[in-house]
């Protein structure tokens, strides 16, 4: 397995996440700052879908719920 090295840029107070400690499933993530969510949403989503930027400048907070997770 090739290991990539990263440095952290940090981002205090921007992202809230919660996982089920029994199953390990992500229950929700909440983004408090919305001008460019590609910086805080999982890079798996941004890169997989080739989304350059997506945004919601209208709501105070966006909750992203995972629907019908099957595993």
């Amino acid at each position: 397995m090739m290991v990539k090295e990263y440095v952290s840029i940090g981002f205090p107070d921007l992202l809230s996440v919660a996982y089920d400690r029994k199953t390990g499933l992500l229950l929700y993530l909440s983004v408090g700052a919305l001008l460019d969510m590609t910086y805080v949403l999982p890079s798996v989503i941004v890169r997989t879908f080739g989304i350059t930027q997506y945004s919601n400048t209208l709501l105070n907070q966006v909750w992203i719920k995972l629907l019908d997770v099957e595993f």
Partner: protein
Amino acid sequence: MLLYRDYWEYLRDFSENPSLDKGKALVIAFNRLYIDICVVDRRDDCAKVNVTLTFTDGIAKMGKEYSPKPKIDSSWSNKGDYYLSVFNKLIMSRIVTVDLCSGETVDESGRKVGEWVFWLSQNDLKQECTLLLYSLADTHVVEYPSKRINGQATLILLNSSNTADRDFRMSSGKVIPANRQIYSNKSMLPFSSIIYPVSEGDVKRVIQVLSNCSCLYRQRIAIKPLFKYKDGKLIVHDDRVFLSSIDLSYKSWEYVHSLVEYNYSINLCRECDFQLNVTEYIRGVLYDG
């Protein structure tokens, strides 16, 4: 009217971004996003997963080379260099393969797209603390201090002793009690800080200021950081506690170092290579990164 006026303003501003590869770009402003994840196959320690994004009530601007096109419930307008659509629903699906041990995720073309953060692995769950790589930027290649580093990342520190303050009702109706949730409301605070210029005469005073600075050390394990002074730079090392207690050997990435400056005179965090102003609406605080 206000809704779409705001969307238009946003898209117009973004279209003027010179760094955007407009042919392959996709920009979406929306009201709500649903992420639907379904495992379609599992072999050994890998799972093949179908990920579907459903955006509602929004507007999308798409480069002409973007492929495959999303499904929308309206039509695309040809605007010359790009397509434009105002939609009620925009749906996109992709297949990815997830390594269930390391979390490394690969798309259909074989490209590594980051750590799969939608499930904690067994390695994550059995530790008291772990780090998750939520966002990364490979384009930021850093020479630090003598080695070449692939990129910069936003890491989430997940402490299993942190519980949520409320129950969570899943879409299925199932309720996850607050005390069963592992909750984090902080992304990674920087582990190390470089402060400059600091004269030799000021070192003692600056260390005193930093030692009393709750902004730097909140939610940390109570241990004094290490201070090193050299050539006008004061370096604060406080990552040794975490790095000694968290096993990251199974990850497909390696945490190297924080590359962060603190401007102690105005008590504001500034990240290198990051120019975006981010407003946190809930608390009305402006983070100038």
